């Protein structure tokens, strides 16, 4: 799905090919040391402008299936990177106190804009080694049980809960089923809905089904512009309803899984804009935008008493799908 080319071995998606070609041409020109440098500089400027126009045009009309590719982009910043950028004094906490520590699910305390918070995130990893270590962001029951434990801890010490969701889904494994994957997810959702503190969830990449909602039943649910959030992967949906996994682009369209779709359906509260060409092109700007959005979402919640907070959170989810 991805090819490597251009500056700093940037990875390009198939539909970014025209941009990739322009950028590699620019790079070639930059390395030319012939006389007549002024013309080259002019040409570089012209091509750079063209590449940006191309990128803007491509990203202005991404199809849902293309968004899925962007959400899964190998260079896209992962939960751990968001935590590193936005949380100071981060103190990881580990384990479900019953079976294991799940490295697919990051958790710990820290400070967000100076205020102590509890942080949760599903981590997919950024290279082969870390992807394997984090099980590609697919948590097992012990991960969701750790989340539940930390949410309850947050409640006791009045720490707002911030979650960063990026997961293909809960891990579908024999061991996970044997240890009660479904129960662990149900209890994590229950913990989100019972926390007497603000819960702000941000879908930063792929919001995959039950494994995502386990951490996202919050007061405010934010979603990055090119993130996706769905009840089933487009591939899974295609193989069931179309009986053909190749129908994934059609399924992605039908599922209404883009940030704009979810916002329109009132299932997420806010869409956070991404830098031109996606979060992977400028992670720092992405972290800043997400930090600002979380701060703005959290602020009005901090003044609410627990009863009001819980009642409003409940009402928000009870309303979803009700006849208007």
């Amino acid at each position, binding site marked *: 799905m991805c090819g490597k080319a251009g500056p700093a071995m940037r990875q390009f998606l198939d539909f970014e090919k025209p941009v990739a070609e322009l950028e590699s041409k620019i790079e070639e020109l930059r390395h030319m040391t012939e006389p007549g440098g002024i013309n080259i500089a002019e040409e570089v400027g012209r091509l750079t402008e063209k590449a940006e126009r191309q990128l803007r045009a491509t990203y202005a009309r991404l199809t849902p299936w293309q968004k899925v590719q962007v959400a899964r982009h190998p260079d896209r910043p992962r939960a751990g990177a968001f935590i590193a950028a936005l949380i100071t004094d981060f103190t990881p906490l580990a384990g479900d106190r019953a079976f294991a520590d799940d490295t697919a699910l990051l958790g710990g305390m820290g400070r967000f804009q100076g205020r102590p918070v509890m942080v949760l995130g599903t981590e997919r990893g950024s290279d082969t080694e870390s992807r394997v270590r984090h099980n590609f962001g697919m948590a097992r029951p012990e991960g969701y049980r750790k989340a539940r434990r930390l949410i309850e801890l947050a409640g006791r010490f009045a720490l707002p809960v911030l979650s960063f969701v990026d997961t293909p889904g*809960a*891990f*579908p*494994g*024999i061991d*996970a*089923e*044997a*240890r*009660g*994957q*479904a*129960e662990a*997810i*149900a*209890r994590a*959702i*229950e913990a*989100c*809905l*019972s926390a007497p503190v603000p819960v702000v969830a941000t879908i930063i990449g792929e*919001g995959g*089904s*039950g494994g*995502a*909602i*386990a951490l996202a*039943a919050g007061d405010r649910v934010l979603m990055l512009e090119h993130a996706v*959030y*769905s*009840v*089933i992967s487009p591939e*899974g*949906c295609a193989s*069931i*309803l*179309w009986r053909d996994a190749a129908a994934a682009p*059609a*399924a992605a369209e*039908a*599922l*209404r*899984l883009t940030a704009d*779709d*979810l916002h329109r*359906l009132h*299932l997420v509260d806010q869409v956070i804009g991404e830098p031109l060409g996606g979060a992977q092109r400028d992670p720092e700007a992405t972290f800043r935008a997400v930090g600002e959005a979380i701060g703005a979402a959290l602020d009005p919640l901090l003044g609410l008493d627990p009863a009001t907070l819980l009642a409003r959170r*409940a009402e928000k*989810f*009870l309303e*979803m*799908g*009700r*006849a*208007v």
Partner: protein
Amino acid sequence: MSWLTEFVRPKIRTLFARREVPDNLWHQCPACQQMIFATDLAANLKVCPHCGHHMRAGAVERLGWTFDPDSFTRIELPKVAADPLRFRDQKRYVDRLKEAREKTHLEDAVAVAHGTIGGRRAVVVAMEFAFMGGSMGAAVGEAIVAAARLAVLQEAPLIVFTASGGARMQEGALSLMQMPKTVLAVRLVKQAGLPFLTVLTDPTTGGVTASFAMLGDVQIAEPGALIGFAGARVIEQTVHEKLPEGFQRAEYLAAHGIIDMVVKRTELRETLVRILGLLQPGEIPAAA
């Protein structure tokens, strides 16, 4: 096996194998292939008298098996946003809904009723697998919330019979949001100090298992019922391992401590009556 089942039934089967037997007079057990006389099967609550196989049951017959005779009233399901995604795959969602309604005579994949069980008031939710695989969309979510509110109002326990392939894909992320919604419904019942019992029937998977189904104060399953989060095929493709014998069956879940007990359908009602009596000993049975 008796002489009757070994000899007489197969003979009857060959005798009437062609057109003489109306389809609804005899049923064949999908597990042991024996023929069962329809009235025998009904009297045995759709459990094969030969091998004990529990066949899938409809939501409405569930209600009849569970409540005291003639004691229950079904409630109308709350109206929900119809096809908010305008979903279509090879078929339109609205057409699938229409077909399912005609087939099951239900509005959606669930029926809700209140009545008495062993003389005690109770609210029961029964899911209908024949309605789009018992999938949970907004209608099922709303039905469970309505049932929970009714239970609180009547100070009655809530019992849910699950049968579901999971979330309803045709409602996209909206169906996913029914998970927190139904968890909230369970919370309402529990906060009112009322029992919430789940009876997991074949099959119960996906988003239904990972929400209200697994939050029962007491969790019962029918023998052999398939219960799990992920589908067997997805697991096989992910882990490239052969699934263990009896994987995700009721007995497997009991062995792994995920449910309290496996109860035969013919003993379910008396089990529920006993449990409710233990959880609410002070309750005065409702007048009939």
